């Protein structure tokens, strides 16, 4: 609908979460990453020749993993795209559980949709594995531990480009 309004329509999660956690008694607000310089790489070859991978913030299991403690543990992993996963673990992530659900994996990790793009020739191929990166409050762990490992797995799988979808 076209109309006028005195505020932006999309939700500011930085503002919303700061106020939410302050109401829970957390005195130091989370400080979000902000980069002045953002890297960019064009595709190395035509899309129809590229192998494309997927990165998700969803987990494979409930409590197994390397990061965090107890039920807050989250795991960095690579898992086969075929057969595609029927479910992934998202209960511990902060998404809108009132408005929607994650019963359809393709709504947050489009493993079947990407396979269709490979079958139709839109891309060269889909990576044989997809990659899971934990939602980690530590930016240094994400940069120094998770990102290099994901890159390593992508290189092992000869991936040219990845689509990352965060819950």
């Amino acid at each position, binding site marked *: 609908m076209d109309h006028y309004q005195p505020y932006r*329509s*999309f*939700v*500011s*999660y*930085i*503002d*919303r*979460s700061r*106020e*939410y*956690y302050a*109401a*829970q*008694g*957390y005195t130091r607000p989370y400080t*979000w*990453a*902000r*980069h*002045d*310089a*953002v*890297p*960019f*790489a*064009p*595709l190395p070859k035509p*899309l129809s020749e590229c192998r*494309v991978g997927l990165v998700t913030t969803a987990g494979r299991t409930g409590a197994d993993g390397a990061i965090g*403690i*107890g039920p*807050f543990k989250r795991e960095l992993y690579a898992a086969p795209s075929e057969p595609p996963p029927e479910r992934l673990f*998202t209960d511990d992530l*902060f*998404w*809108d*559980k*009132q*408005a*929607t*659900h*994650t*019963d359809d994996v*393709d*709504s*947050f*990790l*489009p493993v*079947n*949709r*990407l396979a*269709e*793009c490979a079958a139709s020739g*839109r891309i060269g191929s889909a990576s044989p594995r997809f990659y899971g990166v934990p939602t980690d409050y530590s930016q240094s762990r994400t940069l120094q531990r998770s990102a290099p490992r994901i890159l390593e797995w992508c290189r092992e799988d000869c991936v040219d480009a990845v*689509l*990352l*979808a*965060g*819950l």
Partner: protein
Amino acid sequence: MGCARDIVEECGVARFLFSDFPLGNPCGKPWDTRMQRSIVESALDLLDRAWMPRTTVQTPFYWDNDGWRDTFMRVDDGNREALARAGEERRRRQAELKAQR
């Protein structure tokens, strides 16, 4: 691909495909394969055609209603006390787990 526009744009990424949905389904509504296909196709287009970092493209899709915009992580007089208690409980549980390690 994502729905938290401010977080991603503040961080800065090479290419961002934004869907103005509640958090949880950045690649399309559950079971809506046509929408999911369109979103993946748009992400691939963006991979292919963007020529500079911080390129954001918004998908043309909307959620069925806008109720989620106000209700998610809402803080008001109706839940302020419950949130304070939940925070206390969470910190207590985390301290317990830490002590068990």
